[in-house]
């Protein structure tokens, strides 16, 4: 080893050590967040926050069964008791009427500030007479037997009216007071948890706790616990992603190692071949960790993309070390150009709003550069070993004969590509999926299960909402929200909507609360009025003392605020309905639509705006009617468009780079046509199979272009004339096989994201090689 060699080796070791250090401290992620775009508009921000932290992200559904009828109630109550013990569980409902005691108490306590229009006085002698008579009737009735206190403290029914704010839906069927499903032998539960969708570790821990508590509590061997809901899906898909990335990457790696061993029949050579690859993965991953503060398991899953190219580098080194061609300056030129085209392609993704794509770009760029540099400068220092090439030459000769026979296929290949292009263009509108569910790693079966349980339990439904947004920071929008709510309630009355939930139901505008307070009589005045009509109502001021006390208290109370619901589920509900975006208040009113009527957000918006446009309450506020699913899909479609645009920019940059380097239209065509042709065939294939492509297919196509450019460049005749003795086809075939092995296994992943990527690249890489071989076959024929 020379001094320079030693320096190179030391540098390499330092780089590896640094990368290892960074990786051991890196934060590993496997949730879906990297495929949610960053830096969105206020509306988009709301959608994303909702996906991650909204009420639905903190709601769990559970079903337990089948159980014999006699066990239903005891098991249900035992589970509720066990689950409530766990930290992180805010509430557990099993249908028990006392489940909502805290919420009912809060609403009942504030009944006189929550009800009334603030204009008509409900406490005059005349107005009180009829309600009080009815109240006395209630006392006589069966309902009054155990409700005396309630009737005497709420004779006007304001409390019952405020309790109605609680009931969203009547909930599922009950058996002995506990929720059961339609089959009648499964228990249902709804849990609200305190852990955000962002904290997946916390959620996973909680789920484990819930399952353990179930195992301790339920001894029935037949019965099973099924948990569903956003937290379950998030944790499950993270496990799937993590599991698949580890399992399939290891499998792919093992296949590649086996392949290389088979070819070289030497452990030493194999280790040499792996040096650039491992260096590339370590440096690439470390670069991502440095640049993003964390690294996603999926990103590393894409790391197998590096395998193909890096193994290529090592193969060139080994093969040409032997032939002596490695020393020729011209030999590495196409390989280097291949590297540059890959770098150019990935550079476009750096600007993606999806952190996942940007991470991938960093990983690929840093990894490929490291792999190439390691091959060029470190490998020669480490070893002078070479592959046993005799066998390779025989293989090469055979491959050339095969490839020569491909020349005749050229018109067919061209025809196929043209047909695929036309087909793709015809189907251009259906090529890309605009449904964000396409990225959903949750199985269709699990989603269906969830829908069933949600349907039975009436879980939070945020599909149609009205947003009321302040036009600038500091503007109070509660009056506007209340006005919109009133307008929507009119629609409920008219039968055009089934229900409305608004934050101002629970926290009315302060002005309205004060107007209600103004109408509350003083204690002595109310006493006098009640006594004056006691002869007719049969209820004396003594009997109605709890009512008189409650009114007197409400008169002096401070206006209700969000804080008054602290510790109840109503606080959760308010939290998900009131938010700020860019320091501006936003209220979310949820609509329960009549199922028989299609819901047209634009029409509703126009109607509400006409109805409220002139209202002074709407000053400084803007209302928007949204269908969340439509908007989420639109948001996603926008990002697909952006990603496509970036990819096309990258592709254009690659072509430009090649054009400048090759300085020949003919050569450029030989390189670009096979790549473009392969992409066209894949796209048409997906269209033909009826599979709309999504983000990860696009990533796959980009990888095909990056990997394929290497093949095409190496296969394209070098400008100084290909040396007949050079090994070209064999290393390419080997590299191609490793790529197919690496990605092919991903195609079997149960995570749709990984499967899409694996399928695209697994098919695309051999296609490019094939087309490149066909495109360059004639020259080979001459040589042969």
């Amino acid at each position: 080893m020379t001094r320079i060699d030693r320096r190179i080796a030391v540098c390499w070791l330092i780089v590896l050590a640094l990368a290892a250090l960074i990786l051991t401290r890196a934060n590993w992620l496997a949730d879906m967040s990297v495929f949610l775009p960053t830096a969105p508009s206020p509306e988009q921000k709301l959608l994303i926050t909702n996906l991650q932290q909204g009420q639905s992200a903190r709601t769990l559904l559970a079903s337990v069964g089948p159980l014999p009828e006699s066990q239903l109630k005891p098991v249900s109550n035992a589970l509720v008791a066990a689950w409530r013990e766990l930290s992180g569980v805010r509430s557990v409902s099993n249908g028990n009427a006392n489940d909502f005691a805290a919420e009912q108490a809060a609403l009942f306590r504030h009944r006189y500030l929550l009800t009334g229009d603030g204009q008509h006085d409900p406490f005059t002698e005349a107005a009180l007479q009829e309600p009080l008579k009815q109240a006395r009737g209630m006392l006589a009735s069966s309902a009054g037997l155990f409700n005396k206190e309630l009737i005497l403290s709420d004779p006007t029914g304001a409390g019952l009216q405020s309790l109605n704010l609680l009931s969203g839906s009547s909930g599922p069927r009950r058996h002995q007071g506990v929720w059961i499903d339609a089959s009648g032998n499964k228990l249902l539960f709804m849990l609200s948890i305190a852990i955000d969708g962002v904290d997946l570790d916390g959620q996973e821990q909680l789920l484990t706790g819930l399952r353990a508590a179930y195992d301790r509590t339920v001894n029935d061997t037949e019965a099973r616990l099924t948990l569903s809901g956003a937290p379950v899906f998030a944790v499950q898909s993270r496990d799937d992603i993590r599991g698949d990335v580890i399992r399939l990457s290891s499998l792919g790696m093992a296949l590649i190692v086996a392949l290389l061993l088979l070819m070289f029949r030497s452990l030493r050579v194999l280790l040499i071949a792996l040096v650039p690859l491992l260096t590339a993965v370590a440096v690439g991953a470390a670069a991502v960790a440095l640049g993003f503060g964390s690294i996603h398991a999926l990103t590393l899953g894409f790391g197998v993309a590096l395998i193909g190219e890096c193994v290529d580098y090592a193969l060139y080194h080994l093969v040409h070390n032997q032939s002596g061609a490695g020393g020729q300056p011209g030999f590495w030129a196409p390989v280097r150009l291949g590297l540059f085209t890959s770098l150019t392609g990935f550079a476009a993704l750096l600007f993606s709003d999806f952190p996942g794509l940007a991470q991938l770009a960093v990983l690929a760029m840093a990894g490929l550069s490291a792999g190439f540099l390691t091959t060029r400068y470190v490998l020669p220092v480490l070893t002078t070993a070479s592959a046993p090439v005799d066998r390779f030459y025989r293989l090469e000769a055979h491959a050339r004969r095969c490839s020569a026979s491909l020349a005749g296929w050229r018109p067919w290949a061209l025809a196929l590509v043209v047909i695929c292009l036309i087909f793709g263009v015809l189907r251009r509108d259906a090529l890309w999926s605009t449904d964000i569910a396409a990225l959903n790693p949750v199985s269709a079966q699990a989603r269906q299960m969830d829908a069933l349980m949600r349907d039975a339990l009436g879980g939070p439904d945020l599909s149609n909402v009205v947003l009321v947004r302040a036009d600038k920071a500091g503007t109070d929008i509660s009056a506007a929200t209340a006005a919109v709510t009133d307008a929507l309630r009119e629609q409920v009355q008219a039968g055009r909507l089934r229900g409305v939930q608004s934050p101002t139901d629970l926290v009315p505008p302060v002005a309205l609360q004060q107007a209600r307070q103004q109408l509350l009589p003083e204690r002595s005045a109310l006493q006098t009025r009640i006594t004056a009509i006691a002869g007719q109502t049969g209820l004396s001021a003594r009997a109605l003392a709890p009512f008189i006390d409650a009114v007197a208290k409400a008169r002096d109370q401070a206006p209700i605020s969000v804080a008054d619901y602290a510790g109840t589920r109503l606080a959760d509900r308010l939290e998900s309905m009131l938010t700020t975006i860019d320091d501006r208040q936003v209220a979310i009113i949820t609509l329960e639509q009549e199922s028989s009527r299609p819901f047209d957000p634009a029409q509703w918006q126009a109607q509400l705006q006409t109805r409220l446009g002139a209202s002074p309450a709407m000053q400084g506020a803007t209302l928007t009617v949204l269908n969340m699913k439509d908007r989420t899909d639109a948001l996603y479609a926008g990002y697909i468009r952006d990603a496509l645009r970036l990819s096309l920019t990258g592709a254009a940059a690659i072509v430009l780079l090649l054009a400048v380097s090759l300085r020949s239209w003919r050569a450029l065509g030989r390189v670009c046509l096979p790549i473009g042709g392969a992409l066209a065939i894949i796209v048409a294939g997906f269209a033909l199979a009826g599979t709309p492509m999504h983000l990860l297919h696009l990533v796959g196509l980009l990888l095909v272009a990056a990997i394929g450019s290497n093949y095409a460049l190496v296969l394209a005749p070098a400008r100084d004339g290909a040396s007949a003795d050079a090994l070209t086809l064999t290393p390419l075939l080997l590299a191609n096989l490793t790529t197919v092995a690496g990605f092919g296994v991903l195609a079997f992943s149960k995570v749709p994201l990984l499967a899409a990527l694996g399928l695209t690249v697994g098919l695309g890489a051999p296609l490019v090689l094939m087309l490149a071989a066909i495109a360059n076959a004639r020259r080979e024929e001459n040589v042969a």
Partner: protein
Amino acid sequence: MKRCLPSARAALLSLTLAISGAVSLPTASAQTTDPDRDRATLVTIFEQLGSKTAPSADFVEIRTLGELDMPIESRGHLRFEPPATLIKQTIQPVEETLRLSGDSLSVTMGDTTRELPLDAVPAAAALATALRGLLAGRLTEVEEAFSVHFTGTRQDWQLQLEPRDAKVAASMKRLVVYGLAAQIVQIDLRQTNGDESMLRILNQP
């Protein structure tokens, strides 16, 4: 004053009831000395209660509440559909239908029906158990929820039911059931807050 009429009638009725109770009580206590025989009588009475065809009757209920100066009287029909459905239809002073079926209690007043799971009000659940147990002649069911004290004879008897569950006992002090042979004639409910309800069952088939 016309409005006082129902209340006056109620007072009169309660007076009659008190007298009838007073008349029957001495004879009852005189004959109950042997606990084994009492037990046998109790079992026989429940057998008789259970063997009756679906009972339907009128009722008059007088409720005395601490907060009110005068008792409230209501009247209507009772119907029992074995094994577990009890319908109490009040006609006066307000129309109301209470339907106790399985484990749910629904109260219909005017156009609105409110569904209450019995669990929500333990005392109501206990009362339902007692009523259904009595009407269907299921002694064990009643004894699970109440300690039962029997006095009287097969022809003229009285049961004191005291709730076993502490939650129930917090609001319900005791039920006293008066019967003549296979007929329940009156059920008194005493609550811990001093309120009382007397349900007199009339016109039984």
